């Protein structure tokens, strides 16, 4: 990164940028993208190649007869032209819509989406006036996604940041492997919610299915209703005043705060008794086992 300015990056091809950003050896070494952030450099908080958009510039697209790829390409084209508010009409459950958006954007889907909706996003505010299928907002980095109806399984899988909100109920394995951010569910959640989660928060206003928080490394799950069963190493935790106020504020923000407040919520955390929390070498572990 040293010595490469944003203006230079903007002029580069994708391949040149990959090399300049230190990703060239990623496959060989297994290390991930390494960028040293400098708070003084505002541009560092956006992608150099992300388009500048104007929220007042608004457009509607009828997706009725468009394939997912064509629609995603059209949205990209519009963002490059500076459109900051895009409304998609008649998405009709199509898959992989709105993926890979790395800039600020107001995106509204007037209908339901299929699998992998708005995955790999970093920044947009998305409202889906319908339902979503499996793996909505997978690997989301930042922004806000609000779904007005139900969601399928693996909701917010590997979430890294931002707020992901479902007004209805979600399927199983919500927040699996999540590494940050907040998932809020207005209704019930299926089995294995928070499975192997590493960081972040999951809030379920309704009931939670079996094996809640199974093998979670860290992070917190809050449940307003009944818990069918806890997973391996998931244990109840104690509420702090700060958490109490954060939970109320967060739910109020999305108009999901129950009338009776959040006093009845249960907090679930990792017991940290699994093998990955000890310091034993594999050979030593074998001796013990």
């Amino acid at each position, binding site marked *: 990164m040293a010595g490469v300015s944003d203006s230079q990056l903007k002029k580069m091809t994708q391949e040149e940028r990959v090399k300049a950003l230190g990703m060239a050896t990623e496959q060989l070494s297994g290390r991930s993208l390494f960028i040293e952030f400098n708070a003084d450099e505002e541009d560092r908080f956006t992608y150099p190649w992300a388009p500048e958009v104007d929220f007042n510039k608004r457009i509607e697209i009828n997706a009725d007869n468009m394939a997912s790829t064509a629609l995603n390409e059209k949205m990209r084209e519009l963002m490059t032209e500076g459109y900051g508010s895009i409304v998609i009409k008649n998405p009709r459950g199509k898959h992989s819509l709105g993926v890979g958006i790395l800039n600020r954007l107001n995106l509204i889907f007037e209908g339901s989406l299929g699998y992998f909706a708005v995955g790999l996003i970093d920044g947009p505010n998305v409202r889906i006036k*319908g339902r979503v299928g499996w793996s909505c907002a997978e690997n989301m980095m930042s922004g806000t996604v609000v779904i007005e109806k139900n969601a399928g399984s693996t909701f917010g899988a590997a979430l890294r940041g931002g707020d992901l909100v479902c007004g209805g*109920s979600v399927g199983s394995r919500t927040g699996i492997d999540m590494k940050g951010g907040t998932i809020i569910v207005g209704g019930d959640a299926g089995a294995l919610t928070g499975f192997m989660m590493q960081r972040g928060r999951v809030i379920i206003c309704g009931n939670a299915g079996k094996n809640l928080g199974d093998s979670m490394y860290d992070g917190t799950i809050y449940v307003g209703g009944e818990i069918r069963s806890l997973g391996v190493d998931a244990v109840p935790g104690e509420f702090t005043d700060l958490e109490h106020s954060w939970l109320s504020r967060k739910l109020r923000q999305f108009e999901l705060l129950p009338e009776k407040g959040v006093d009845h919520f249960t907090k679930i955390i990792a017991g940290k008794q699994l093998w990955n929390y000890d310091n034993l070498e594999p050979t030593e572990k074998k001796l013990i086992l």
Partner: protein
Amino acid sequence: MCGIAGIIHRGKSSNVGSEMTAMLQALKHRGPDSTGFAIYGETKPGDFLMRIKVAEKEDMDKGHGILDRIKERISEVDKRLRAHDATIKESENATAYALRYVISHDGNIKEMAQHLEEIDGVEILSLGNRLELIKDLGDAAAVSEAYGLGSYEGTHAIGHARMATESDVDIRSAHPYWAFPYNDVSVVHNGQITNYWSMRREMERRGHRFTSDCDSELLAVFTAHNLAHGVSLEESLRRSVQEIDGVFTYLVATENQLGMAKDAMAAKPLVLYESDELIAMASEEVAIRAILPQEIDTHDPYDEEVRVWQA
């Protein structure tokens, strides 16, 4: 991966052939190898509908003298039907290797079916008072056109778009499966059954027959076994969730019911839409949208969930 779909109209018939074609075509990307339909139409009381195949589709390309052998097989089928005192009321070729019979018969269905299947190359796809089971290689639109399903009226139907993973790309391994020899029971499945062989051996010890090595057939045989012993469809579905290992979502249709079951991990998808008029379900919402384009409320059934609907 595979895609499954089901639709049931409450108390009325509809063009379920065309509806199921649209749903399965929308799921083509989940399984392009073969497509199958189980459609429940109306028949005259006492009539039986029988769908059989007398060769595999691939035999038509490579088999020398296959047309003569098909002719012999059909002749033998007719002869054996008459030997069982069945009256052939209608008989038509859907394709060169698949036939549809309307017969009247009041004898032992199982014995007759077993006798017919002893003919080399002959397999009964379905036999019942309402069920018509059609399956072939290709996508939904191609199979529907070849078998003229666009105009099929009925109360309910299930269907399957298959991606072959554990057995061959042939009609024998295509879904739906008829729950031999139980009238009007069919099954479609998306998933993998991990205790298939132990369960199959148990079922074979109890006298059930398997026509393929496809794990999905076990669900049909398991259902047939339970229904034959007076177990309700709902209870059979519940037992399957407890006794069958693996990841699966499957649909079962009977003369007047449609049921679904999901495994303990909820690892295979199903999206459900329910209204006062109809219930539609599919592996993906796009299939439901193919027949209900307006904005609707849908949801995913949870792990170990079992549901049964009445036509």
